[in-house]
């Protein structure tokens, strides 16, 4: 079972998304901020991380950078309501306007790319 870490300071969104991910067969762990996410990341092995961009404290891009530094093979997807963001540490950026079901498609794509050893190949998308 693939493990997904979902980070967002909106607790309702966190809970609903993790339930959807579980329904899709993932082991989903919620985190309400970057610090919580990094604690979880150090305790468990995750196949992919999805993070909100704007959060109190460390933002999503900075979190992606730390995660990429710790485990470069783990893809990070950024979700935001503020237009597309690019960065070397993220695999994809999704708009919040249309999160579901697009997020699920993107997770599947990122995981299959990661399995093929192609993390980083999706940066341009």
């Amino acid at each position, binding site marked *: 079972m693939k493990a997904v870490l979902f980070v967002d300071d*909106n607790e*309702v969104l966190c809970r*609903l998304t993790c339930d959807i991910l579980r329904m899709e067969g993932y082991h989903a762990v919620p985190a309400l901020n970057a610090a919580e996410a990094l604690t979880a990341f150090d305790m468990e092995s995750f196949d992919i991380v999805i993070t909100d961009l704007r959060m109190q404290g460390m933002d999503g891009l900075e979190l992606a950078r730390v995660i990429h530094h710790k485990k470069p093979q783990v893809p990070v997807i950024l979700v935001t309501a503020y237009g597309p963001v690019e960065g070397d540490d993220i695999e994809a950026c999704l708009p*919040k306007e249309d999160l579901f079901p697009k997020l699920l498609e993107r997770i599947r794509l990122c995981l299959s790319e990661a399995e093929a050893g192609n993390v980083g190949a999706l940066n341009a998308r």
Partner: protein
Amino acid sequence: MRNALQNSAAMAESSAQKQTGADPLDAGRHGEATREFENFLHARIVGQDSAIDAVTEMFQMFLVGMNPPDRPVGNLLFLGPTGSGKTYVVEVAAEALFGNRHAFLKIDCAEFQESHEIAKLIGSPPGYVGHGETQPVLTQEALNRWHTEKLKLSLLLLDEIEKASAALWQLLLGVLDKGSLTLGSNRQVDLSQTLIFMTSNLGAADMSGLIEGGMGFVAHPTAVDASLDEKIRRTAEEAARRKFSPEFMNRLDKIVVFNTLRPQHLEQVLELELAKVQQRITQAAGPTHFTFRCSPEVKQWLLREGTDPRYGARHLRRVIERSIVYALANLVATSQVITGDRIHINLNPDGTLEFIKAAVAASSNAAVG
């Protein structure tokens, strides 16, 4: 909950009372904890009373210390069509006992189809590749992880048991019989405080045939009735007896064949699932959560879209997830819905769902991330 043994015990007591004038004892009566447990299961599991009875009986035996020593608390085999709730029963039992529906150790037997893969489960012996490198899955710590001061009971789920390798079968026979297991490191694992659930889709193809109406020029789903359940029960049990050895079957305390869910069951499942979605929102957002309500037309639509006898309640849950939860998550993500809102979900003439904010929250300055 009264079986033949209990009935005969009650009859014997009644006759004894006639002779002695003493009050009759009710051997089928449950203690307070067992009743609470049973009620919890009944409130959440629809259409599977025999499974509830089996689990409750095992729990009662455990509580009063009547389960046989040096054996697991119970060995239950759950058979039945997909989506009938075999794994769900274990999840609800875990939630009832430990307040967490993931509070059990699950072993997916499909991951141990090759004999060499058994090392993942119990660890490699000294001198073999992988010894000391990977943590075995089935350890005492993993089993006891959810124990509390008051309840030292473990739940172990062996999913899709028919896919187990020959090596896993050998191992299981010992576990089911003696309630113990020797790891690769020679450490012993004690399963005498463990309730073991095994699930299987054996006979699934035959069961699908029964549900879909069998062969013919016009295939149409068969009406779900008692005779269909009886046919499914026989099909599942025969498939189990063909596949599993007598040694294995003899070690089972109970075989439960899950019923196909009827329309009235699915209506109850729908209400339960919608309530669960609301509960998730309430738990996350606290007392100022937003609420949602589906119109009767939406509920009928969900039932129509979500009813497929081949996939049972799982299909209905998926339809709820995709048509209600996806949309709610998107509305929350874009701050179109905030705490205090009341959302009405209606059905449009074109068959799409419409989400209407019935009351606007006083505060609408939620930050968008």
